[in-house]
């Protein structure tokens, strides 16, 4: 069995971005990301006042790895799951929560923002995003990649990995 993929686009993508935007505005957080469990970014939003975020790919990969390890720990302890991840440093904090079976919501915030507010608006965003991501699950066989795409990508492989 191949794991299903989430393909967010069009109205669903726009709605997801709006949910992330509302979350940032209401909670006062810096960055909000919607990831799939494999560590790929599906949508993200930055607060207008926030500086450029760190590499989103790296962030997504590490959070997905962290979340996967946390779920494995939960199972070892006989728990069906640990619902959220919370890390707090001296100036920044990170909150991550599951969005259904296939996605994760990540919120990066300043520690001056109360954690309770992040969790409250985070959970509200999760419930909206859960419906959106569930509707965006596609059969990998229907992703529309054709031979023309393959041949183009193959030519680029030769160009990039020329010895």
């Amino acid at each position: 069995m191949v794991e299903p993929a989430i393909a967010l686009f069009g109205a669903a993508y726009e709605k997801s971005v709006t949910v992330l935007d509302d979350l940032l505005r209401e909670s006062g957080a810096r960055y909000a990301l919607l990831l799939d469990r494999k560590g790929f970014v599906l949508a993200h939003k930055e607060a207008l006042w926030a500086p450029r975020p760190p590499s989103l790919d790296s962030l997504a990969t590490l959070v997905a790895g962290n979340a996967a390890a946390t779920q494995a720990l939960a199972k070892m302890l006989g728990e069906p799951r640990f619902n959220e991840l919370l890390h707090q440093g001296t100036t920044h904090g990170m909150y991550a929560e599951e969005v259904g079976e296939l996605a994760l919501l990540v919120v990066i915030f300043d520690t001056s923002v109360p954690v309770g507010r992040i969790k409250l608006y985070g959970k509200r965003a999760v419930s909206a995003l859960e419906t959106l991501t569930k509707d965006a699950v596609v059969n990998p066989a229907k992703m529309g990649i054709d031979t023309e795409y393959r041949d183009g990508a193959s030519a680029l492989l030769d160009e990039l990995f020329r010895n």
Partner: protein
Amino acid sequence: MSTINFAAREINFKIVYYGPGMSGKTTNLKWVFQQVPPNRKGEMISLATEDERTLFFDFLPVDLGEVKGFKTRFHLYTVPGQVFYNASRKLILRGVDGVVFVADSAPNRLRANAESMRNLRENLNEYGIKTEEIPLILQANKRDVQDALPMEMIQAVIDPESRYTIHEAIATNGTGVFETLKAVSRSVLSRVVAAG
């Protein structure tokens, strides 16, 4: 399975380097990182112990460029090879699109190669994937070691039915690294096309 982000017009594929401890999985990634121009790669992340053994994974995103309006990216991962890190190894395989199995050519590593391949089968099975269903490329690394195992012997223990292509490599100087990566990438692309 590959992730398409229509909004960002990106197609992402996940490729995992698997194999026994010290076979050169991280060295493969480091070579790619050194050779690919800065505008075509992201930062390389290594979650390793102080003596540079992979603890959780290494990660390197590579931008292939734009194809039919879609930015195509390969996310390269390695797993920790040491036997006792199996729990972490299993997690990295989630959503994998293609696997490079890096075998060690050192004469005393024949059994380790065989056990690692068996472990790969078992871990893929836990995700409901059979090894035949996923693009898998074999690499016999460290061909420069003294008394390197013959290629046929390595293939016989990891791929007794000679089902897969095996590439010779010396990852420390880059020999065979790109060939292997190109082979698995092409295989991944072909599979996605076939699925459509």
